[in-house]
């Protein structure tokens, strides 16, 4: 299937909101522009083959003279996307209008093109063009005398002057149309992205407040729900939906991969019965919103991807049909808004800040030695915290250095090193884990005192 058709179908069938579809790159319209441009160029004798020969020649010429002055104005032919002086104002106007044109430097008397080693056919075509310029609709662009403007204007136009030659300018109407359409559409996409980001921001903020309320550890009734939500978010984080975090996978994911990961996340929380454990309708609504936000990010990612491809494809087509080599120079002139990745990144960060972080995860508060909750937490002089049990074992074992920084701080840890503030926090957010660890610590303290038989005390009695 042709890309144009495929693109159209995706826009129609993938369930994008109507205002998104309206902002999409109008692939078929741009294609028509290219056709018009090809006709325009052909009418002045410049078909793709001729132009590519010409451009290749200019390139070779430039490389061969690069050692001297790179831009000494002796180039015979130029394709200019936008006026040079536009660069000066670029800080103020990032989107300068496009006025693409072709410039030829031809000998005034013979009409022969400057310094060109072209084959006869091309030469003839160009001579015809140069001779005809006076008669046809093409504008002849006479450069002013070097003397008169050299002092007043140091801009690039003076350097184009070469004695005995004049410059012929071929304005390209359809070309202008092509690029202004594309530029407008890209701005439109950017605005759409800003709008979506703001909207998602509000949505996420609202959900964040809701989740925070439902899991507030100060309310006893929330206690069971807190564990459920924590588990859901833990599965979510481990699913690495939009970004990988392992040695072998550490980049942003594309839409297909992210969709697959998201599906896996949905399956996991369903099979683990986590959805059923949220019994309250309020909680289910919140979970639904959470899923919805994720689906929206996925859709944004997909929309950005197909638009990006559409742009690359249309530029490729443009080059193929006109041989003007625009694909490499255009993206520098006009940055493609990183629609997909940017929106996904921004929204994921938002999701982290507003929602996931409202429920502390066990992994962030586990002891690097036993990998369980650091209860009771002891902060060493070097600033690193571990659970008291592991440090007791280390001290008994005469291991004196901090496991993380190797500073000799374990040896002088005492009850003053207990981190009471962190202890309160852990008790509040991880009540079940604290209880389990407390029991274990007591058991192990007994074993320390009475030996292994302490574990079996119930059986013995």
């Amino acid at each position: 299937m042709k890309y144009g058709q495929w693109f159209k179908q995706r826009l129609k069938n993938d369930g994008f909101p109507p205002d998104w579809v309206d902002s999409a790159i109008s692939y078929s319209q741009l294609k028509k522009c290219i056709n018009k441009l090809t006709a325009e160029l052909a009418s002045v004798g410049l078909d793709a083959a001729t132009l590519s020969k010409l451009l290749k020649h200019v390139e070779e010429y430039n490389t061969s003279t690069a050692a001297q002055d790179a831009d000494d104005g002796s180039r015979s032919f130029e394709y200019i996307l936008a006026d040079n002086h536009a660069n000066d104002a670029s800080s103020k106007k990032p989107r300068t209008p496009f006025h693409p044109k072709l410039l030829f430097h031809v000998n005034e008397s013979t009409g022969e093109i400057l310094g060109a080693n072209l084959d006869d056919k091309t030469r003839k075509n160009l001579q015809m063009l140069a001779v005809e310029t006076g008669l046809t609709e093409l504008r002849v662009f006479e450069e002013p005398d070097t003397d008169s403007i050299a002092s007043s204007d140091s801009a690039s136009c003076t350097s184009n002057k070469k004695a005995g030659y004049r410059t012929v300018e071929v304005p390209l109407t359809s070309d202008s149309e092509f690029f202004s359409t594309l530029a407008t559409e890209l701005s439109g996409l950017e605005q759409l992205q800003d709008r979506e980001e703001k909207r998602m921001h509000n949505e996420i903020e609202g959900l964040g407040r809701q989740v925070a309320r439902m899991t507030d550890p100060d309310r006893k009734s929330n206690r069971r729900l807190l564990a459920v939500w924590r588990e859901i978010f833990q599965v979510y984080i481990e699913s690495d939906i939009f970004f990988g975090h392992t040695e072998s996978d550490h980049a942003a994911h594309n839409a297909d991969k992210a969709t697959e990961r998201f599906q896996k996340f949905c399956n996991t929380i369903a099979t683990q019965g986590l959805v059923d454990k949220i019994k309250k309708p309020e909680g289910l609504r919140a979970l639904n919103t959470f899923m919805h936000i994720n689906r929206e990010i996925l859709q944004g990612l997909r929309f950005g991807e197909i638009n990006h491809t559409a742009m690359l494809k249309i530029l490729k087509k443009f080059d193929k049909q006109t041989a003007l080599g625009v694909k490499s120079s255009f993206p520098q002139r006009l940055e493609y808004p990183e629609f997909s990745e940017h929106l996904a990144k921004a929204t994921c960060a938002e999701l982290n800040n507003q929602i996931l972080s409202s429920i502390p995860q066990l992994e962030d508060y586990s002891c690097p030695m036993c990998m369980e909750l650091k209860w009771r937490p002891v902060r060493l002089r070097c600033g690193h915290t571990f659970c008291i049990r592991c440090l007791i074992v280390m001290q008994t074992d005469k291991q004196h250095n901090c496991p993380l920084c190797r500073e000799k701080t374990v040896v002088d840890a005492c009850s003053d090193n207990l981190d009471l503030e962190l202890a309160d926090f852990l008790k509040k957010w991880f009540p079940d884990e604290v209880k389990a660890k407390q029991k274990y610590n007591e058991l192990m303290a007994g074993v320390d005192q009475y030996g292994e038989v302490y574990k079996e005390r119930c059986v013995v009695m």
Partner: protein
Amino acid sequence: MALPKRIIKETERLMAEPVPGISAVPHEDNLRYFDVHIHGPSQSPYEGGVFKLELFLPDDYPMTPPKIRFLTKIYHPNIDRLGRICLDVLKSNWSPALQIRTILLSIQALLGAPNPDDPLANDVAQRWKEDQNAAIETARQWTQEHAKP
């Protein structure tokens, strides 16, 4: 004795997110005993080889380091004929915050950066210092001979 939670967690992560070029699989009948395979680092004489190791977690792990030994023959100044490894983090510089994962990475790195100034296999280290190119060539030959996957 029941397996500590830490060992269960480490094993789970090694299985779910393996380190590139390294695999560690516990024995079914002894979950403290692992079969390890390390791929020789690229641009080292061990490139293209897959080295087999055994890894055992003692009862007081992580307070004491895991016991690790090469099973595949290897020509390396810090690994002796019995496969024993001379690596500071496996001995004096062990820390209970290190893991199977990090230790295996260190061993992989040791293959990429042999250290003949702190030798375990004296003859190899001697040769490494006297004629490094020849030593590297021997290491390459041994890899071809013994460490073919």
